[in-house]
């Protein structure tokens, strides 16, 4: 994953260095963002929109990777509860966001850095308000410090289904047939 570029310099407030990544559902939040752009409503320059087919596609790995790779906050914007186009994708997203918040809290990171918003496609003002709210909250938090990426991260993704390679740390040879020998 490449680093998230800093906000482009503009004549007005660029929001400093902070970056907010918004994972938006194609059916509602992204449509709301589209409509707000057509209405020439300006969003905070800190936000980056990521189009998702449904918020149910957002996994904890998306949220945590975004934070680790340079985002100061992540928001998930999906359909109203009960109005998911894939029936219950947004309920999955709500629980995953809650889980990531608890993960962050347990390691000493502010849980407000990850939030879920719901809106319908016909509510561009609600989308803009959610983004501004997220930007305001993140702006009030101390910067998120990151340690260097582990060198092995990029190279060690093995194509054979995510199982650890034989030589990788943590993978030790283990007799699978031990129990059969006992039986």
């Amino acid at each position, binding site marked *: 994953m490449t680093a998230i570029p800093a906000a482009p310099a503009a004549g007005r407030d660029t929001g400093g260095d902070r970056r907010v990544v918004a994972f938006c559902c194609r059916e509602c939040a992204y449509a709301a963002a589209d409509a707000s752009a057509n209405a020439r409503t300006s969003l905070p320059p800190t936000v980056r929109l990521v189009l998702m087919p449904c918020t149910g596609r957002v996994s*904890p790995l998306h949220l945590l990777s975004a934070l680790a790779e340079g985002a100061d906050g992540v928001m998930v914007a999906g359909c109203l509860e009960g109005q998911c186009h894939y029936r219950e994708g947004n309920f999955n997203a709500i629980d995953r966001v809650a889980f990531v918040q608890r993960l962050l809290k347990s390691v000493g990171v502010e849980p407000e850095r990850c939030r879920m918003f719901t809106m319908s496609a016909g509510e561009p003002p609600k989308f803009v308000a959610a983004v501004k709210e997220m930007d305001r909250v993140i702006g009030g938090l101390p910067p998120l410090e990151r340690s260097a990426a582990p060198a092995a991260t990029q190279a060690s993704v093995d194509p054979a289904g995510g199982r650890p390679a034989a030589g990788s740390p943590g993978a030790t040879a283990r007799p699978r047939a*031990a129990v059969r020998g006992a039986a």
Partner: protein
Amino acid sequence: MPLTNRGREILSRVPGGTLQSTTGVGCEIVRHEELCVGCGTCAANCPSGASQRSDTFDVHQLLDAPAGSRRGALGDALRRIMRHEPDGLVEVPARVTVLRTISYDDQKCLGCGTCARGCPAEAIEARPPKAGAAPDAEMST
């Protein structure tokens, strides 16, 4: 199959003694939590209910997971932003199914090794009881 001392001790806890002829009872189950992927196969296969999906998750399982696995990728991301070591267990919401720690109750376990046979991540080891715990002569037939 002769019963070992451990197997006899386990069977004494089973009501009714219906497992008298079961082979392999008494294996020592060793769980390697860092390799666990949380699929719950062991809990689904367990005949005695010793392995169960719990409602909590131990964050150390992410940090200790081998590099290249899905949990390892999560752990790498978490390690880069964490400010201190994770404190305690995390409550898991209902719809998060895979990121759960499997609870294992040694007192309920029969040592049959079904979990180890079914584990897709090879995270469970069923060790035959040590030679020191070998059965005595009268019980060995």
